[in-house]
Structure formats: C-alpha cells, structure tokens
C-alpha cells in the first residue's frame, strides 16, 4: 500500500499547488520582463547589452539548482528506493537541460559584444558545457533500459557521480583565470550591483524557480500515468 499511498498524496498536493505555481510564474515573469526591459538602467560600461544578464544569470542559477535537486532525488532513490524520487529526477532532467542550454547560448550572445568572442574554452564555460552533456546523458541513460526502474537507478548513479561538477562550476571563476566575471551577488559584504538591477534579476530568478516546479509537476503527473498504463497493459497481457 505504501508504494501507492505516496503518489496519491503527491497528486493531491500537486493539484493544490499547481495553479499557484502557474499564476506565480506568469506574474513574476511579467514583472521581471518589465523591470528588465523598461525599468532598469543601461550599464555604465556595457550599455544596453547588460539586459542579457536578466536571462543569462537566472538560467545559469537554475542549471545548477535543477541539477542539485536531481542529485538529492537520486540519492533518495538509491538509499530509500522512493519511487517518486526516480520519476522526479527523470522529469527534471529535460528542464535542467533547457536552462543550461539557455545559459550557454545567452552567455555566448553576451560574450560576443563584451569579450569579442562567442566562446572560449575556459574553466567556467567548459564546466557548464559538461553540465549540459551530463543532462543529456541522464536523459539518454534513463530511457536506455527495458525496465524503467533500472534506467532510473543507472541514471541516479550518473547524477551522483556528475555532481562533483557543481562545486567546480561554482568556484571555477575563483580557481582559474577566466574571462568570466566572478560572482557579484553572493560575494561577502554588500553585493556589487545596484538595486535597480537586483530587482529584475531576483524577479526573473524566482519566476524561473516557480516555472521549474510547475513544469516538473506536470511532467511527474505524466510519468505516474505512464507507470499506471504500463501496469495495466501488463495486467491485460497476463490475464489472457
């Protein structure tokens, strides 16, 4: 019974929070876009190109955050064999890949006018590219097995091994010489950024976070139905 009780509880909770997540995403996204495109000043060095930051930085944060969520879910799948954890990790991977792709491409679009190049093989950019390939690897591995449980376990192992990449990405700008600027929000003391730029950044970041939980709920619901479909068809073929 326990195996079924917990997805049932998840579905009840998901049904209750999903409209709030959807509404919150849309409102904060609208606010973030308004602040980012109309209400924030151009940068005194970078001019209007600084507006790429309001997509790039939240997308890069999400790339790391979604991976961290997958790593936690993978650990609880492997340790406690919680069935929802595997579905949550599976549902999260394409969203994380999407955010990582956005971070890479918007970074490239920002790098061209500011650094004079679309791409450099430095520590930050390369480690984020590896993160993108890790996401693709997780998606491929999850679907590579006949049994979905085996696929989820294999991909959980890869997710945990790959999580060493997270601190490498975070500290790459401090450990190695790079074109990429170091963190300006989370550095000790006051952030090195004006509030007029901080607000659009935080609005977009929260909007992206709510978006992630909204879409992951939609995807987990789909996965739960898929699992039920598989059980039903198995029952039917055995019944004959």
């Amino acid at each position, binding site marked *: 019974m326990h195996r079924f*009780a917990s997805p049932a509880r998840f579905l009840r909770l998901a049904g209750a929070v999903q409209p709030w997540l959807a509404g919150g995403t849309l409102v904060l996204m609208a606010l973030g876009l308004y602040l980012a495109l109309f209400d924030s000043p151009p940068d005194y060095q970078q001019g209007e190109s600084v507006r790429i930051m309001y997509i790039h930085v939240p997308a890069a944060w999400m790339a790391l955050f979604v991976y961290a969520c997958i790593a936690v879910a993978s650990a609880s799948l492997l340790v406690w064999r919680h069935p929802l954890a595997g579905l949550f990790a599976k549902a999260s991977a394409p969203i994380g890949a999407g955010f990582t792709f956005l971070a890479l491409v918007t970074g490239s679009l920002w790098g061209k006018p500011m650094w004079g190049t679309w791409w450099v093989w430095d520590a930050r950019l390369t480690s984020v590219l590896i993160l993108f390939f890790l996401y693709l690897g997780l998606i491929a591995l999850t679907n590579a097995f006949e049994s979905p449980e085996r696929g989820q376990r294999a991909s959980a192992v890869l997710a945990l091994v790959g999580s060493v990449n997270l601190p490498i990405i975070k500290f790459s700008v401090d450990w190695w010489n790079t074109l990429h600027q170091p963190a300006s929000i989370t550095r000790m003391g006051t952030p090195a950024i004006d509030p007029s730029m901080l607000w659009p950044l935080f609005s977009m970041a929260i909007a992206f976070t709510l978006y992630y939980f909204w879409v992951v709920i939609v995807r987990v619901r789909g996965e739960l139905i898929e699992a039920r479909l598989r059980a039903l068809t198995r029952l039917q073929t055995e019944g004959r």
Partner: protein
Amino acid sequence: MGSLDDFLAMGGYAVYVWPAYLLAAIVLIGLFAVSRAELRRRERHLQALERSRGAAGHRRRRGGDAR
C-alpha cells in the same frame, strides 16, 4: 515612434539582446507545451484503456487513496 525605435535598437545591441529573450521564450514555452501535451496524451490513453477494461476492471487505485 522615435522612442520605440530606440527601445528596439537596444543601444546598438539589438542583435544580441533580442535573440536572448526570444530564445528564452521559445525554450520555456516549448518545454511546457511538450510536457502538457504528453500528459494529455497519456490521460486519454489511460481513459481509453480503462473504458475497454469495462466494469470488470476494478480499480486498484481506490485502495491506495483510502490510506
């Protein structure tokens, strides 16, 4: 209309700024649309399957909900 042109020009960075926002919109809307279409498709499939099983197909689900 001068101010709209200024806005769209993005201080000369239009070719970098607008593709970034456009791409973000495409990726986020696309991911959501694909996820929801997949959910709807599976829901329809499940309904059809449960109908075809008919009254004989007692629902195991109820036992789980009662907990």
